[in-house]
């Protein structure tokens, strides 16, 4: 299995995402924002960071990168696509996922170990979890507050499209404690916390992040 990891100017967690892919047993392929070529990968990760300095709006400029045209086309055909943090912001800006990520309600960047509850275990990136499972992975962002209109929120809730929720105090003001969502088809997932930083207890708070990366392998094998 080959999983692409995109680097935009200002991307930071690309090497971490690639490491997580390797830990899961797949091959990580780096993709450059300026190249429209996906190098035949089976799935793509948009990692965290501050692409284009988060200027204008987080993810707003990256979504127009040449590589995104091809990624959007493939995702619409069912290719698994995971956006982490800044990647989630790009997915919303690209309208692959509904809603938007806005400034944390306390206005600070916040880096902490965060407990999440996995709500959806049918998406391409969460099938190796059990429903209701609580995990601890790092959260680190300044603009992680998930916002959308009431109608969209109802749609997400009613169709089991909320992938994970924050447990305990709301860290950033997200509606309904949303930490991650998926599209209707379940192949595109956006997640604000960082599973790629929880794959080894030497460097992270747990290994709870790994199933995100093994799930997609299961999904691809089953195809």
């Amino acid at each position, binding site marked *: 299995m080959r999983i692409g990891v995109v680097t935009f100017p200002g991307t930071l967690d690309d090497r971490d995402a690639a490491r997580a892919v390797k830990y899961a047993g797949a091959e990580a392929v780096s993709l450059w924002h300026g190249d429209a070529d996906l190098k035949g990968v089976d799935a793509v990760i948009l990692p965290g960071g501050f692409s284009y300095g988060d200027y204008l*709006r987080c993810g707003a400029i990256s979504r127009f990168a040449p590589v995104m045209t091809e990624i959007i086309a493939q995702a619409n055909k069912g290719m698994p696509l995971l956006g982490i943090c800044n990647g989630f912001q790009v997915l919303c*800006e690209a309208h692959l996922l509904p809603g938007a990520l*806005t400034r944390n*309600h306390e*206005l600070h960047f916040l880096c902490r170990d965060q407990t999440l509850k996995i709500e959806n275990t049918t998406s391409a990136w969460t099938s190796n979890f059990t429903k209701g499972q609580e995990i601890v992975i790092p959260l680190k962002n300044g603009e992680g507050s998930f916002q959308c*209109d009431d109608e969209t929120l109802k749609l997400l809730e009613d169709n089991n499209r909320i992938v994970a929720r924050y447990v305990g105090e709301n860290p950033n003001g997200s509606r309904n404690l949303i930490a991650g969502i998926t599209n209707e088809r379940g192949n595109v997932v956006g997640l604000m916390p960082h599973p790629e930083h929880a794959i080894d207890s030497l460097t992270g708070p747990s290994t709870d992040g790994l199933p995100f990366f093994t799930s997609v392998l299961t999904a691809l094998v089953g195809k």
Partner: protein
Amino acid sequence: MGKIVVDVMLKPEILDPQGKAVAAALPRLGFSFATDVRQGKRFEITVDGDVTPAQIAEVEKAAEVLLANPVIETFTVRAE
């Protein structure tokens, strides 16, 4: 040189923590009149010569796809 101004504001229903922080700070400084504050963005786009209606229309398109995120923001475009 003409100037086209684009004002971008969060939609009223979207939480604006920055505006809220400003609203909370005003009374602390003795400014007690404000019932609400919303913070937005302003773009100034400079063009050669006077602004044409066609340029306004182009900027409106640009605002729709790039300068504003219609999911959470509204915008206005005008020549100045």
